[in-house]
């Protein structure tokens, strides 16, 4: 029977799903822990305050309570600083401040939700009851709900060591003196703050295991959590086994290190018993990192034909109260990606960051690329409007042509490969762009609901190194084990990595086991974020499997008494060229490798565990098209068509890639229309639950029409570029461009997101009022 050996590119159903659709999967809250104690945290209700007194005797005496701890108990025992921030490498940061405040308050709170007192009890309900009985006396201080307030003259210092609250300056000077250009357009933008909101709130559990601790946490990066926690607690890394079990989504916000990941193992060591903490949704909204959240001013200079010659970007970035991971990468990524998929000769960008009394503001699905893409795509529409050009035409005039790759941008990046205009053409064809424009003209002339058409082209940056692990071993029974350093939380790596190893080794993917997210099972790893898993972690599996195949060739040569260069490989079997009848497969080779007859140097035969170190990043791209209709009476926008063309290079599993696009579109569309995480001027949190924060429901989102082009990357041998964030990046500007296009008869050139019905209605009605006024003047 012929074995199907080509499996990369097949729409294989996920092997993860049977346990998930039957409720057998174990998330951190589900891990059975007999005799576990439960942690509840007393958190600050104030954005900024001194803690002047804590009265916990009543709480300590309540039923089931086993202990009450404050910063005074915990902080002096810690051996390394929390947070773990350090300066990002390679960035032009100046004056970067990385103040630390510990995983629990030390007499000062700096955001709503800062932990102040840890209460441990025998049941979650007893812990919550006792936490409610703790009395904390706060002395209020002025707070700052956004970075402009924090940077204002006379603003209260959030850290004594950081007067003026300035967290950093970042500067990317122009690559050369910009050429003169006659058309200059500038626009101020406010990109709102968003809550990533994985469905699973953050949860941490730990258990003593002999002289070790097992730490389960809902994370995107078990290995990094282990390293940091070991340092902070002052225990050897080998004494901590960190496991990311089933993880219910992350979107970047679970790639950080959080206070509870330190407090739970600290308490486990203290009690010698298992301890668990599960965030409520409100705790999760208050304390898990938020994203986006940028003030920006973009100026472009162009010639009269619409060719953009120069881009200049100034940003103010809100860091929140602390860095939950190594430093601010979002503003620098926004700056370096500001030229988008366009051939813009010169560019400059700068940012200043400020601490505020709000949740940390960190990478959220796309980090920097959604911001940059939104800014340049909005600006191209504004420029097209000023010049009387069609939005598609202005893009055609500026897109980097296919023959220019690898392309060096004005901001110093090297784009690997691309066929940008082909993606745009496909989107226009699939969406019948010409037909939509005809319909729009008909409605504008003859009445009907306002129709808007939005186009957005994007390029993004993925596949960040410096390395990822993906060891491959052929076991004595001929089955295969992959040990990956990636940390999936819905992406389906168990299925996809089995496809890669299966194809490389010519074995049925069902014979491939994939281990991940466990520091005992997988010796090394970085994790899953920044769409790096396929181009770095997948490439590691690909190259290690290739090495194992070469090892097998040498073994086969010995077994078949032939020269290694004469050994051929097909469909999972090795044979001497020309005599296919005498072939050996993995089972025979594995048995031979383990036997005494195998060559002397075969001690670690049929296994390879070399990390893949990408030489550079990858640059997926695409084009999105959105048609939107406005309900004139209410201002409500309704998406009629949504076409997403995404090129992520070689696709490992189209089912999974499409799933990533679907989810990305939902989040990008939602940024355009619905979501807004709000603090008041002092930093009081206004959207602390799903009652206030608009996560879209099924009936708020359209059906998506997906198309794909395939332009492999030369950066890794797999040819994959990454797909986790792409659709989030393209969709926000496509939707906003469509809504603003619908509002063009009202003279609207730009509206800041989210485009709520109220905002749209006001734009339609208040601009009419202005029009009437100016007529009467």
């Amino acid at each position, binding site marked *: 029977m012929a074995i199907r050996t080509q499996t990369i590119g097949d729409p294989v159903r996920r092997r993860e799903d049977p346990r*998930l659709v039957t409720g057998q999967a174990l998330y951190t809250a589900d891990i059975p822990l007999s005799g576990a104690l439960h942690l509840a945290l007393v958190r600050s209700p104030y954005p900024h305050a001194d803690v002047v007194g804590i009265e916990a005797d009543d709480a300590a005496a309540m039923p089931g309570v086993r202990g009450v701890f404050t910063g005074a108990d915990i902080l002096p025992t810690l051996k390394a600083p929390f947070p773990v921030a350090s300066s990002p490498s390679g960035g032009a940061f100046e004056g970067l401040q990385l103040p630390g405040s510990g995983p629990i308050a030390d007499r000062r709170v700096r955001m709503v939700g800062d932990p102040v007192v840890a209460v441990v009890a025998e049941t979650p309900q007893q812990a919550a009851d006792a936490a409610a009985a703790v009395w904390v006396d706060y002395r209020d201080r002025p707070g700052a709900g956004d970075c402009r307030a924090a940077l204002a003259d006379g603003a209260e210092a959030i850290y004594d060591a950081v007067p003026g609250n300035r967290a950093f300056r970042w500067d990317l000077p122009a690559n050369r003196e910009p050429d003169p250009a006659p058309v200059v357009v500038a626009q101020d933008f406010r990109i709102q703050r968003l809550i990533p909101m994985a469905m699973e709130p953050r949860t941490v559990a730990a258990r003593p295991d002999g002289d070790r601790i097992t730490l389960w946490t809902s994370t995107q990066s078990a290995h990094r959590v282990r390293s940091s926690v070991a340092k902070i607690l002052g225990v050897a890394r080998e004494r901590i086994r960190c496991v990311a079990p089933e993880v219910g989504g992350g979107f970047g916000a679970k790639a950080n290190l959080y206070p509870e990941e330190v407090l739970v193992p600290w308490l486990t060591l203290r009690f010698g018993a298992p301890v668990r903490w599960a965030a409520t*949704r409100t705790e999760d909204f208050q304390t898990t990192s938020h994203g986006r959240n940028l003030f920006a001013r973009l100026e472009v200079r162009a010639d009269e034909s619409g060719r953009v010659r120069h881009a200049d970007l100034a940003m103010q970035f809100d860091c929140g109260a602390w860095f939950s991971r190594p430093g601010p990468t979002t503003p620098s990524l926004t700056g370096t990606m500001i030229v988008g998929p366009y051939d813009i000769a010169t560019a400059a960008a700068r940012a200043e960051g400020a601490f505020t009394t709000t949740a940390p503001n960190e990478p959220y699905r796309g980090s920097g690329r959604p911001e940059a893409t939104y800014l340049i795509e909005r600006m191209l529409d504004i420029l097209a409007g000023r010049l009387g050009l069609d939005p598609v035409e202005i893009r055609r005039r500026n897109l980097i042509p296919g023959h220019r790759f690898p392309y060096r941008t004005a901001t110093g990046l090297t784009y690997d490969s691309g066929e940008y205009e082909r993606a745009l053409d496909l989107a226009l064809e699939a969406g019948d762009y010409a037909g939509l424009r005809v319909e729009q003209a008909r409605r504008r002339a003859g009445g009907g609901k306002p129709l808007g058409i939005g186009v957005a082209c994007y390029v993004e940056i993925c596949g960040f190194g410096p390395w990822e692990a993906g060891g491959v071993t052929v076991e004595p029974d001929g089955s295969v084990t992959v040990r990956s350093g990636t940390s999936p939380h819905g992406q389906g790596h168990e299925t996809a990595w089995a496809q890669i190893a299966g194809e490389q080794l010519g074995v049925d993917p069902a014979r491939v086991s994939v281990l991940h997210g466990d520091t005992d099972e997988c010796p090394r790893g970085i994790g899953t974020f920044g769409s790096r898993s396929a181009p770095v972690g997948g490439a590691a599996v690909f190259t290690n499997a290739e090495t194992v195949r070469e090892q097998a060739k040498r073994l086969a040569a010995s077994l078949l008494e032939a020269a290694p260069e004469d050994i051929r490989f097909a469909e999972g079997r090795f044979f001497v060229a020309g005599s296919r009848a005498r072939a050996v497969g993995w089972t025979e080779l594995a048995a031979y490798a383990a036997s005494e007859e195998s060559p002397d140097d075969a001690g670690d035969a049929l296994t390879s565990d070399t990390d893949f170190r990408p030489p550079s990043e990858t640059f997926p791209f695409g084009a999105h098209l959105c048609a939107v209709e406005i309900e004139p009476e209410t201002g409500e926008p309704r998406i009629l068509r949504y076409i997403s063309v995404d090129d992520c290079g070689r696709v490992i599993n189209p089912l999974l890639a499409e799933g990533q696009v679907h989810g990305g579109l939902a989040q990008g569309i939602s940024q355009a229309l619905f979501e807004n995480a709000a603090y008041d001027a002092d930093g009081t949190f206004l959207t602390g639950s799903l009652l206030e924060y608009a996560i879209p429901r099924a009936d708020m*989102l359209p059906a998506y029409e997906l198309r794909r082009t395939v332009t492999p990357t030369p950066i890794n041998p797999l040819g994959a570029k990454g797909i986790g964030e792409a659709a989030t990046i393209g969709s926000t500007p496509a939707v906003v461009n469509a809504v603003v296009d619908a509002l063009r008869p009202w003279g609207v050139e730009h509206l800041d997101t989210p485009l709520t019905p109220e905002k749209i209605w006001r734009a339609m009605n208040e601009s009419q009022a202005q029009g009437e006024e100016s007529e009467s003047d």
Partner: protein
Amino acid sequence: MNHRVCLKVNGEARDVEVEPRLLLCHLLRDELGLTGANIGCDTSQCGSCTVLMDGKAVKSCTLLAVQADGCDVTTIEGLAGENGLHPIQQAFWDNHGLQCGFCTPGMILTAVEILDRNPCASDAEVRHGLEGNLCRCTGYENIVKSIVAAGARESA
């Protein structure tokens, strides 16, 4: 002052003593070890904890355990039959109707009720029927596709 609650869970009679304030989701998860119903919010918005109570999809975080006295509860663990996956579970698998899987038990059990009411539910009707269940991974596209496909299979 504990209360006695007698109920049937996944076909099995259970007799438990509970605090009056205990929520049904905590009874299922913490007392009966059925962790398939997930807790994703504290305001009854997300639907991850949905179970079937006497055939109706309910959010188990919105009910007290004592309210389930005398009721027949089905959780995701009890949905598959002797012959394997329930058609809706199968459809979610076949159509990539889940990613992280956290909302999935609630989605599937809500889908049972949607298709009980109308096996031929359209895309729009399914979307409307899912208004009490949030998903953050799939953009709902393949969830809707899965439910419509399961309905078509049941009514075929």
